[in-house]
């Protein structure tokens, strides 16, 4: 079993009555001559790392290597525990965890690139928030990760997930599309609704540039992981409510790639544009070359 496009994936799902996660598992077993036990085990290991990286900084703040971030997840967590959060439990937790993972990442902690290190907070953030708020089992979350993996695979196969090639829309944008699709499957949506949610995210984050201050994976990366998580939940909610999208996922992936390649290199991880060249960012720098 294999697919190269979202439409092919949906055809398999609809003709065989399978979910996206089931098809992705079957593809992995067929393509890499492995077993279901093996891939489930590997995904459980990934989920364990994701959870730890999402939770640890909510209790203990860690300073990043570059010194630009640290402690944000703890602040958000305390804000929510005090009942002062204005966005509800799921969104509040999702953005807390998304920022937490980036804190771990920026301090040389252990994370799972999903799909990249710079965008590694979104998928665990959204899934852990849903798990806690809706009492979802680890086994079901593992399914969610295979679903997310299918969307990320489509982006890697047909476009890019590298900020240096496609900007932040290719990193946090794709991560958020993955999370949105996984959220829809976990909350009972159909495969097609999963792709509507993914398509919505790519549309809403289209054109987002990669402009890391000092060239480091810290700021605004961490903020954008939080925004990506909220974007993913927005799109999932819309899709689960029955809102359809006129632009299918395959077209949005092509569209994102097309926009990405047309971004000036200044806006693709070179730290020569956007936030990276604001006066405040430049003031931190020891000198431009």
């Amino acid at each position, binding site marked *: 079993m294999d697919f190269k496009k979202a439409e092919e994936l949906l055809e398999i799902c609809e003709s065989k009555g399978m979910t996206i996660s089931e098809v992705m598992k079957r593809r992995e077993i067929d393509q890499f001559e492995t077993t279901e036990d093996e891939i489930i085990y590997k995904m459980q290991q990934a989920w364990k790392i994701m959870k730890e990286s999402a939770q640890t900084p909510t209790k203990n703040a860690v300073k990043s290597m570059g010194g630009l971030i640290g402690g944000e997840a703890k602040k958000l967590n305390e804000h929510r525990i005090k009942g002062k959060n204005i966005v509800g439990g799921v969104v509040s937790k999702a953005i807390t965890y998304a920022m937490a993972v980036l804190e771990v990442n920026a301090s040389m902690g252990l994370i799972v690139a999903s799909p990249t*290190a710079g965008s590694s907070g979104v998928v665990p953030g959204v899934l852990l928030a849903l798990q806690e708020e809706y009492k979802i089992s680890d086994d079901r979350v593992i399914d969610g990760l295979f679903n997310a*993996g299918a969307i990320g695979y489509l982006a890697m196969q047909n476009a890019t997930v590298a900020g240096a090639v496609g900007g932040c829309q290719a990193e946090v944008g794709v991560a958020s599309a993955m999370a949105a699709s996984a959220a829809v499957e976990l909350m009972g949506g159909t495969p097609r609704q999963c792709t509507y949610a993914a398509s919505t995210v790519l549309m809403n984050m289209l054109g987002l540039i990669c402009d890391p201050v000092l060239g480091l994976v810290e700021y605004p990366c961490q903020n954008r992981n939080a925004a990506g998580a909220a974007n993913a939940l927005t799109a999932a909610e819309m899709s689960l409510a029955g809102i359809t999208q006129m632009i299918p996922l395959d077209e949005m992936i092509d569209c994102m790639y097309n926009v990405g390649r047309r971004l000036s290199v200044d806006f693709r991880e070179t730290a020569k544009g956007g936030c990276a060249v604001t006066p405040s960012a430049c003031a931190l720098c020891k000198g431009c070359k």
Partner: protein
Amino acid sequence: MASISVFDVLGPNMIGPSSSHTAGASSIAYLAQKMAGGSIKKVVFTLYGSFAKTYHGHGTDKALLGGILGFKTDDKRIRDSFRIAEDRKVDFKFLTNEVETDVHPNTVDIHIETEDARVLDVRGESIGGGKCRIVRIDNVPVDFSGEYSAAIIVQKDMPGVIKHIAGALSDRNINIAFMRLFREGKHERAYTIVETDSSLPEELKDAIMQNKYVEDVMLVQI
């Protein structure tokens, strides 16, 4: 090329902060130490492009040194690699080269000297998502990924060497995934790189060494 796995999307499991500047860097150095084989006494890293500009803030230096110490991308000891290298009495140095710019933006040259007086120079490129390529060994341009187990054979460019190598693999029922020959010139030094679907037994090295034109064999196990 190889098909994309779900674990290429949700992975690698890695020490942050950057798949290209940290995970890819440690993978290059990990491959280099595997190629060197013996215990490493001295290592000099020369960083180019984006590596040269941002290596400190990305922990590229810790990751490279960690790879040399044999740590994989998800090994938490990478954070303490400077101290561990000192404990193990590995002499290490980082240089930057911002003059040469016609290289891949994330390139590193690794110069290794082992306890048994072997000297090895490897150039690696971190090509994104934690993936890397080895593009030069000593002064010869090569190309392999480290995603497969590999045998690197240093030989004189003479007839029959490839047949001998292929025979040694065939005798052990090892399937070849990719095989390439790179040479300095006709009848000069050459490098054969064989990437295989299964792991390579240590005794394969001796078997390949039987040919009089073979100077050295390095096995890189995945």
